[in-house]
């Protein structure tokens, strides 16, 4: 099951899988960044994606979130193809993501960053907003309550009025997670959540990821360079190398996979 030649044949979207990636490819000019990658993520799973630099991990996230168009293959959400949908539609279906190189709304405050993401929960019309109708005020109150809940959960409440661009690195990473959660996702894509964190923050991350899953009934897809962290927290993982999925399975299976050992330690191992 962990061999690239044993890749599953394309199905028409498995009904029980939350997310299914089928034979997904992405080509940038002459570079094949992703080569027919397939796997599926079950509801409630914490699924890891590891691989050396340039293996195509972030490209995979960009294809799943709709930021980059796929050159081939399909992305299925609850059994239906969403390959051609733009990022905002995919988010409204329940796919939220963070960015490896942090893309906060830096000119807005921490609280406003969350309010932007909360704009559909609940929805209110522009006219109601202009006239400041009771319905709009109720919606605003609900948005603020949710925002403060998330700020407290991610220990950002003290920083609510600070401009996002002025935060320390670790706080920005948590704000990115809070902002993604604010869109009310079923699947959260975390792109290198441990990058740039200090050792203490890294230690807390595993607990945070598990906590998020249980508190928000989330499924998580995590890209991480810090492999030991991922081994501890993931239920299953996929390994990418040069755009090809070379392994898939539980952390224990992946650890012993000869392809993975070769990719990480070189041909002599």
């Amino acid at each position, binding site marked *: 099951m962990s061999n690239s030649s044993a890749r599953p044949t394309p199905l028409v979207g498995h009904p029980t899988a939350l997310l299914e990636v089928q034979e997904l490819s992405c080509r940038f000019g002459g570079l094949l960044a992703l080569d027919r990658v397939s796997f599926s993520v079950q509801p409630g799973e914490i699924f890891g994606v590891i691989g050396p630099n340039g293996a195509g991990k972030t490209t995979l996230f960009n294809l799943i*979130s709709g*930021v980059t168009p796929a050159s081939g293959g399909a992305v299925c959400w609850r059994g239906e193809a969403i390959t051609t949908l*733009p*990022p*905002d539609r995919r*988010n*409204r279906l329940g796919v*939220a*993501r963070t*960015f490896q190189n942090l*893309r*906060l*709304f*830096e*000119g*807005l405050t921490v*609280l*406003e960053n969350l*309010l*932007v*993401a909360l*704009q*559909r929960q609940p929805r*209110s019309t*522009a006219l109601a*907003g*202009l006239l*400041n109708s009771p319905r*709009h005020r109720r919606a*605003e109150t609900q948005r*603020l309550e949710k*925002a*403060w809940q998330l700020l407290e959960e991610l220990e950002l409440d003290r920083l*609510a009025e600070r401009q996002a661009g002025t935060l320390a690195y670790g706080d920005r990473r948590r704000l990115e997670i809070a*902002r*993604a959660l*604010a*869109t009310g996702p079923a699947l959260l894509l975390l792109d290198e959540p441990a990058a740039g964190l200090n050792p203490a923050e890294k230690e807390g991350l595993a607990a945070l990821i598990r906590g998020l899953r249980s508190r928000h009934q989330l499924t998580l897809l995590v890209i991480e360079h810090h492999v030991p962290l991922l081994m501890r927290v993931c239920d299953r993982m996929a390994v990418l190398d040069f755009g090809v999925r070379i392994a898939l399975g539980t952390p224990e299976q992946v650890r012993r996979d000869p392809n993975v050992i070769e990719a990480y330690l070189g041909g002599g191992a």
Partner: protein
Amino acid sequence: MERHAAERHAPVSRWGCTNVIDNGLLVQMLIGALLGVSVYLPLAAGQLSLATPAFYAVGGTLAALLSTRWAALGAGADGSFPLPSFLLELLLAGALAGLLALLVGRLVLRLQGIYLAIATIALVEIVRVAILNLPFTGGAIGIFAIPQPFATASGYLVPALALLALAGWGCQRLEGMPLGRAMAAIRDDELAARCMGIDTTATRLSAFVLSAVLAGSTGALAAHFLNTWNARQGSFDASITTLAFVILGGSRSWLGPVVGGLLLTALPELLRPVGDVRLVLFGLVILLGPVFFPRGLITPGLLERIGGRRQEAPR
């Protein structure tokens, strides 16, 4: 710039006084502020659009045509014009400009940054040439003797102030509602905004249409105030002047373009006593403004110091 100053000056001399800020100049300043807000709205959603003069020209031309050709509006033989008809024209001009923006915006808003700016300049030119050459818009001379709903220039202060108050109130409300927040998010990072579920195309289009509605209504008001209207009202010059309102005033709050519009419209008239040097001085202000106030005169920090801290959240 010269051409404009001269044109705008014409109705002021009609009422006699030119030395200090008289009511005629005040109305012009308010029109400048309104156009500044119109440029600010797309900019608040990260879109550099210079199309404001095109919508201003469309609104003004519509008002000029309706009031001089359509007898049902009730223009008097003595040049008077009923107030309800004037208000109807403001609405119609805003609606027509908004509709045009809706159609054009779907095309041009695919462009970003400087390319959008160039496409909107092209729109201004297309509208100008169209108004110049259409059989019913009076060619180069334009439309004359537009009837007056108010007997004096000071009468126009009320609708101009009311329109500005409405625009300011709208901008202020926007900040506390999803559309305004989506605009601010797009301005900071459009890709991140899309990944947070924001329909960025619809948001940008909304800002563009709001900007056009405001410019169209302002044009209708200006057409009556100026008494004559021609194609030169919406020119590339005006694109740059209105952009200067926002750059000098600051683009982080709607008060910035209001202050910029008021100041930069008044300046050429106030400098009139020094003769032709005034245009050089005017140019210097536009040039040096961004050097000394790179974020504009009105910054969020300044507003905070004036108004005390804005509290959004009940804790």
